[in-house]
C-alpha cells in the first residue's frame, strides 16, 4: 500500500480534490496552502484539482506517491478558478 501526498499552494479562496470520482478532504495549512494524504492500493487512478482564488493568482500542486510525481502550475482565470483537469496517475506495486 502506498501513500498519496497532495500539496497545493497559492490558493486564496478554496481548493477541491477529486480522486477516482470521490471528493477528498483537504486541510488548509495557511498562506494559501492546502494538503491531503491518504493510502492507496497499486493501480491506475484519475484525479483532478480545482482551485479558486483572485484572478491571475499563481498556484502550484504536487501529487506524489513517493515514486511518481506530478507537478502542476498555473494562474487563475479572470473568473478566479483553474484546474489540473482529469489526470491519470498510476501507483506502482
Amino acid at each position: 500500500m502506498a501513500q498519496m501526498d497532495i500539496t497545493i499552494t497559492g490558493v486564496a479562496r478554496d481548493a477541491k480534490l477529486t480522486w477516482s470520482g470521490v471528493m477528498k478532504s483537504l486541510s488548509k495549512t495557511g498562506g494559501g496552502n492546502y494538503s491531503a494524504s491518504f493510502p492507496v492500493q497499486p493501480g491506475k487512478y484519475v484525479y483532478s484539482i480545482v482551485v479558486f482564488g483572485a484572478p491571475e493568482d499563481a498556484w502550484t500542486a504536487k501529487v506524489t506517491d513517493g515514486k511518481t510525481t506530478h507537478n502542476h502550475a498555473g494562474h487563475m482565470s479572470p473568473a478566479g478558478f483553474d484546474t489540473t483537469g482529469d489526470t491519470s496517475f498510476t501507483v506502482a506495486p
Partner: protein
Amino acid sequence: MKSKQFPRIGEFLSTGAILGLLTMGPLQGALGAAPTTPADSGSTGGADATQNFVSPLGLGSGATISVTQKGVSATASVESQFVSPWVNYWQLGLSGTTNTNGQAAVYSSTDTGAPGFKGKLGIGRSSFLATDTHLYTAAAGKLKAEVWCINVAAKLAGFNISQFDAAQLTSCRPIVERAIAVVQALPSGADPKTTATTLALLQELQQGLADESAIEDAVCNKLKTASTAAYSACPDSGAVDISVEDLGRIYSNIYARIVRPTALPALYYKISFNYSPSLVSTDYRAVTNGVANLATNSHWSSLLNAFAVDGSLYYKAWSFGLEAAYGKTVNIVEQNVCNTTTSGTFTAQQCKNAMIGKPNPANTASATGAISFTPASNAAATRLFRPGLELVAYFEHPDSGGHKTQLSLPLYMAPISAPLKFVIGLQPMWTWTTEPKQTNDFSVFLFVGARPSVPN
C-alpha cells in the same frame, strides 16, 4: 488611560505581522464629535492597536507572530473540509499574547493590554466545494490530452509550433498529419530504426485521435526510451504540467471548443456558524464607596461566550463579507498605577497597568462588513507587483449603550510570484467610540505579512 473592548466579536486572527505602528494621534472632534481629553502617559495613543490589519471575518492563514509596541501576539488557525451535502468545512482559530506588563499569557484576546484566550470554532458550507465540477474537469482533461498529443507529435517530428499557430489549432489532427509527413520525407541517410519508431508512435497518435487520453499512458511508456524530448510532455516525467486555464490562453480555439461550454460560474459563497469564547483577564484595583484601593492588586478573569454568523460572496476580483455576532464583551479601561518611593528630594516610581474598578461584562451586538478587491490592477506596470485594497467597517453596540465604530482601509502590494505569502502595505484606521467616553482616533499601520484573507 487606555480603553479596550474585550472581546471584539468578529475581529480575530491575523494573517500579517505588524512591524510598526505609526500613531497619528487622536483627531480631536472629528466628524462633529465633542473634543476629548488626550490619553495619559499610559496610553499607546491612536486607535485600538489590534493585532490584525485584515478582514475581521477571516480566520487568517496558518500561524503568525506580530510584534507591536504593546506586546507580542501569536495566532494560529486551521480549516479542513469534509464530504457532506450541506456542511462541508470546519474551522478553528486560537490566539496568544504577552502584554505590556511582561506577563507571559498562554491565552490572549484581540489586544495586548489585558491578556485573554480567544478561540473561534465554526462549521460552514462552501459553494466552492458544493459546485459540481466534474464536467469542467472532464473537458479540461480532454483539452490537456489534445495539447499533450500536439506537443508529442511536434517534438517527435522536430518542429516548433508558434504561438500564433497554437491559437489557430482546433485539434491535434493537423499536427499529427504534418508530423507524419515530415518524418516520411526524411532523407534516406536518417537512422531507419529511429525513423520507424518515430513513425510508429505518430501513427499510434493518429489512431488515438478520437480519445488521446486512452493512449497517453501507453505512448508515454514508449517515449521514455524513444524520445526524451517528447517524454517531457508526459505528466509523470516530472516536468511542470501547465494548468488548463493557462493552456486556454495558448490554445484558445481548442479551449473555446472543449472547455468553455463547461466553464464554472464566477459567483461563489461561504457561510459559517461560529462559537467564539474568550477568557479575558486583567489586573484591577477595587473601588469601595467611590474610593479606589490602589495599594491592593486584584485579578479578574472571566469566560465570555459569543456566537457569530459569517457570510461571504466572491465574484472575480471582488470579495464581500459580512459577520453578525452577539455575545458578552467587557470594557477594559487601564491606567498606570504607580508605587512612589520618596527619599529626601528624590522620588522613584514603579508602575503597572491596571483597571480602576472591577470589569463589568455586557451583552453586545456587532456587525462587520468587508470588501476586498485584488488584483486592483493588471496594468503592464504592475507585472512584478500587484496592488490590492480592502475596506473593513465594524460596528459594536453593547446593551448598556454607546457604540464603537471602526473603519479601516488596508492598501497593499504583493509580488506577482507569491501574492499570498508576502504583502507590504499601509492601513489607515478611523475609530469612533462613545463609551466609556467619546473619542475619535486615527492611526496608520505599516504591515508586512500574508495577504488579507477575506472572509470565510
